[in-house]
């Protein structure tokens, strides 16, 4: 039984890791060719991401897009989640549904919605349209983490603060915000990583004028492979693993993903 179980874990791990291992191998090829196992060893392709003007520009676009859109997503989700927690207003749940919808629907649909919208209002192709579109597309993530964060606040803490003279604003500043800060940070981080990787919405809003890294990879795919693509892919996986690793290290990722409490051991 134990052997079988271990084998099962190994197989799943192998399945999930295999393409990444191959891509990692390809990314250190000495020459500009796509072979595995790699011939020779070189980290030059990683340097390309930062040195080649085109790749560097795409990187800057991607990071700018991810930071700005994650910040706006949090700015939308925070007051909404706070309101839903603080007030009894069943009809306001419609906004929660609206916040969750873009993420549950197939992404092509949301992307096409944005394309129709920006084309109709005549702003198609502007960089900030992608920022706003991503903010709406990923608002689900901070909304979910923040709702979890608010739900985890023991309401007697807020009551205790008010018996000690704190009004609504003081409670928010001294009790609520410090307590949900970890959830706010993870919401931002989730939105950041997913925005960094997002292709179709970015493509349908600014794909004809600007290249983000995923768009650049896809465009490059059509003209043949370069090891830089592999290097970028590994770079992305590393960023994601670092961000989620940090969330797990400083916070409680099991709780964020639905385990009831941190002390089930």
């Amino acid at each position: 039984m134990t052997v079988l179980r271990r084998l099962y874990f190994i197989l799943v791990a192998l399945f999930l890791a295999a393409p990444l291992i191959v891509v990692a191998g390809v990314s250190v090829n000495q020459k500009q060719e796509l072979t595995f196992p790699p011939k020779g060893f070189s980290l030059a392709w990683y340097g390309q991401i930062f040195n080649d003007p085109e790749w560097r520009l795409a990187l800057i676009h991607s990071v700018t897009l991810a930071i700005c859109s994650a910040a706006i997503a949090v700015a939308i989700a925070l007051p909404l989640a706070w309101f839903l927690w603080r007030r009894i207003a069943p009809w306001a749940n419609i906004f929660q549904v609206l916040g969750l919808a873009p993420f549950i629907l197939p992404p092509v649909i949301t992307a096409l919605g944005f394309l129709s919208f920006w084309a109709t209002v005549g702003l198609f192709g502007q960089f900030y349209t992608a920022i706003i579109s991503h903010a709406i597309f990923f608002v689900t993530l901070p909304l979910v983490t923040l709702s979890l964060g608010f739900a985890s606040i023991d309401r007697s803490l807020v009551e205790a603060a008010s018996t000690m003279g704190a009004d609504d604003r003081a409670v928010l500043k001294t009790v609520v915000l410090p307590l949900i800060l970890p959830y706010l940070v993870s919401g931002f981080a989730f939105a950041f990583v997913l925005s960094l990787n997002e292709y179709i919405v970015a493509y349908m809003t600014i794909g004809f004028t600007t290249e983000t890294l995923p768009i650049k990879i896809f465009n490059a795919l059509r003209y043949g492979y370069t090891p830089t693509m592999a290097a970028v892919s590994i770079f992305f996986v590393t960023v994601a693993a670092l961000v989620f690793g940090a969330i797990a290290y400083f916070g409680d990722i099991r709780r964020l993903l639905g385990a009831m409490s941190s002390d089930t051991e």
Partner: protein
Amino acid sequence: MPGLSINSITKRFADFAAVDDISLSVPDGKFVCLLGPSGCGKTTLLRMIAGLEEPTSGAIVLDGDDITRVPTHKRNLGMVFQSLALFPHLTVGENIAYALRIRGASKDDQRKRVDELLAMIHLTGFADRPVAKLSGGQRQRVAIARALALSPKLFLLDEPLSALDAKLREAMQVELRQLQQRLGITTIVVTHDQREAMTMADLVVVMGKGKILQAASPIEIYRKPADAFVADFIGITNLLPAEADSAGRTTVLGAAVPGVALPTGSAKATISIRPEDIHFSSPGAGAIAGTVSFVRDLGGTVETFVEAGGTTIVAVATPRERPNVSVGQAIGVVLPPESCVVLQP
């Protein structure tokens, strides 16, 4: 008029009255326990005094001011919650200083007051510890100190000791009472533990189904319970049927109890008698005939269970006056008339 007065307070949740037209007056500086089983409305009453629930009708008056609609944060009170509600993101010192910080007190003043309060609860030097590192009893004290930081007019505690183990709980009861007497602060505690209420309170308010059943001093509640519910809820008691015989004398389970008068006009009533008031005699005249069914020797006390007339009577004695009885023995049970309380039907 100094003190707290509660005038015809009612709280309805949908069509259920959690607190049903309660009036109560608490003199300045007194210690009151709201006592009752869960769901009796005691916590709701306390939360209305704190402003955490809004009464459906009625008024709450503190020192002559109607505070019924005053929001919690302007009521100048200190409260200890059942969960303690210590802020997990703040240290012990920051927790205690919270009320001062909210009012914009200077860092120096905060520090000074925190040191005073920590000394009061015997936790000097704990200011910089995180709350999570404290033991249950220490957390308890920090919660109390935090609530008293601004010397409030009113000190409210909701089941404050329920998370502690039995021994620590009893010690904290004594400590809390001594602290309250030293500070002379009007205090209201919600509890379901009658021992706790007896230990601490000047005034015990027994509640049931949203109403006050009896409000009196602990010893009066114990000696003169108003009804069968109170008698049974406070300590252990024997509830026995009493009736008038043809000659008009009051009898309990066939034995005459002279000097105990039934309410005028009724031929039947229930009497309450505490186990420690019961004596045994040899079977015969003037005593209830019974059979010993079980003897529980707890070391400090001895409980004797006697089957008589279809009910079980329990008597308690100290080991020194231990009755010399054994299971199966036929004996007489004597009820001293001065210890019998005739209950309202």
